[in-house]
């Protein structure tokens, strides 16, 4: 029996508020993280992801107390990311109530960190977040689709190929990949399905599709065409367009196994 495909509302948090931007800029307030998380837990979300979006660039610690408050209201898995630089950051977040920790920039600077973290805490709680953008690789003449990964909330290019990076991170012990298309993020044009499918086919760990959801069909496409194990969305839930329950019903109607 296949596992139920997961629907994961994502809370991008900045200064203690849930926010949402388009292509990683142009930010709009979406409420109090505790209230928002509670709402999604009640609506039957399968998981919640909580990203402190400015933690790395501002060199701030993730807002542990907000994590604590959110964790009190949420009896489904909670993934927290943003500003994770050392093993102790992971311990602190787990102790605050997180179940999984998402690592992005630090994995790029110190890939060995993912090895250490997964062997210390177990692969099941280490998520590697990849922010990828479709790109023209000047050194290569082929017409194949390629994506480059970015760090610092999408502000710094790395020159690293997203597919190769995903394979390496899986080898290093990552338990899951949170794959965000920067081209799609906030545009409501749908996931980058080619990117999602390429990463999903290349690795044996679960892939969460992220970036660009504008309607419920996009969620279905992420699973059926992108091969994602879970689909993440923010705006469509934050601003009341759809409930998680409606999203699940739409997926079930399209023949996707979900937990209703």
């Amino acid at each position, binding site marked *: *029996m296949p*596992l139920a495909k997961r629907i994961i509302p994502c809370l991008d948090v900045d200064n203690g508020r849930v926010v949402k931007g388009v292509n990683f800029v142009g930010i709009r307030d979406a409420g109090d993280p505790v209230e928002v998380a509670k709402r999604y837990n009640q609506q039957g979300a399968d998981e919640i992801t909580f990203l402190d979006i400015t933690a790395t660039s501002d060199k701030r610690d993730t807002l542990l107390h907000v994590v604590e408050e959110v964790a009190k209201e949420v*009896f489904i898995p909670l993934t927290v990311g943003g500003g994770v630089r050392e093993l102790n950051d992971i311990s602190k977040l*787990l102790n605050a*109530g997180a179940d999984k920790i998402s690592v992005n920039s630090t994995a790029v600077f110190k890939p060995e960190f993912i090895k250490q973290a997964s062997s210390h805490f177990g692969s099941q709680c280490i998520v590697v977040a990849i922010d990828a953008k479709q790109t023209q690789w000047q050194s290569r003449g082929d017409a194949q689709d390629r994506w480059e990964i970015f760090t610092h909330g999408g502000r710094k290019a790395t020159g690293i190929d997203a597919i190769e990076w995903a394979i390496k991170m899986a080898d290093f012990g990552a*338990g899951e990949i949170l794959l965000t298309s920067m081209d799609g993020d906030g545009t409501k044009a749908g996931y980058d399905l080619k990117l999602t499918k390429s990463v999903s086919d290349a690795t044996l760990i*679960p892939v969460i599709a992220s970036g660009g959801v504008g309607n419920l069909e996009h969620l279905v496409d992420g699973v059926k065409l992108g091969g994602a*194990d879970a689909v993440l969305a923010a705006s469509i839930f934050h601003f009341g367009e759809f409930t998680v329950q409606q999203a699940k019903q739409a997926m079930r109607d399209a023949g996707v196994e979900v*937990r209703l």
Partner: protein
Amino acid sequence: MQIAVIDFGIGNLRSVEQALHAVAADADIVVTHDARVIAAADKVVMPGQGAVGTWFKALDERALTAVVKQSLNEKPLLGICVGMQALFEFCEEDGGIDGLGVFQGSVKHFSNFHVQQEPCLKIPQMGWNQVTQSQDHPLWQGISDQSHFYFVHSFCANTQADQPAVVGTADYGHKFIAAVGRDNVFAVQFHPEKSHDDGLTLLKNFTQWNG
């Protein structure tokens, strides 16, 4: 009523603690690695995340083996995830380690059971799977058969192991043990503390169960 949640120094204990608080507001929930507190508690929860070798190392370093064995004989005890796997005779993880032997059989990596198939099943199994209630049990009260629970694991116990004690099964490439119980011991491979309303119902049933 006092419920001791054993602290092995690994994983997310707060989730278990908070979920128990949510379902039993009057209970005294203590997260502890003090053998005396565990010995005095009315009920024991034995959580576990990560590797079983680390779990046994913590059990040893914290000198908790005796009190855990004693609890297994005399009071309601709930094992969760690695806290369930440790109850079998043998765990293949970390080069192989002897378990507590409450239940017969071995805990093995999923890859031992999966046949080559397309698309291949991802390991760890991470997500919501349906549980078949293969026997009635007070801890299933109020939970529909085939409800979804949240699993995160790479190792599992085959249903052939200790068949009479199998209380629930799930299917991920093959049928494996999702819940196992005998007398005062109940243990689950999934995470009730992360399994939304059905998980909370199971925990509530545990707080009301006399073994």
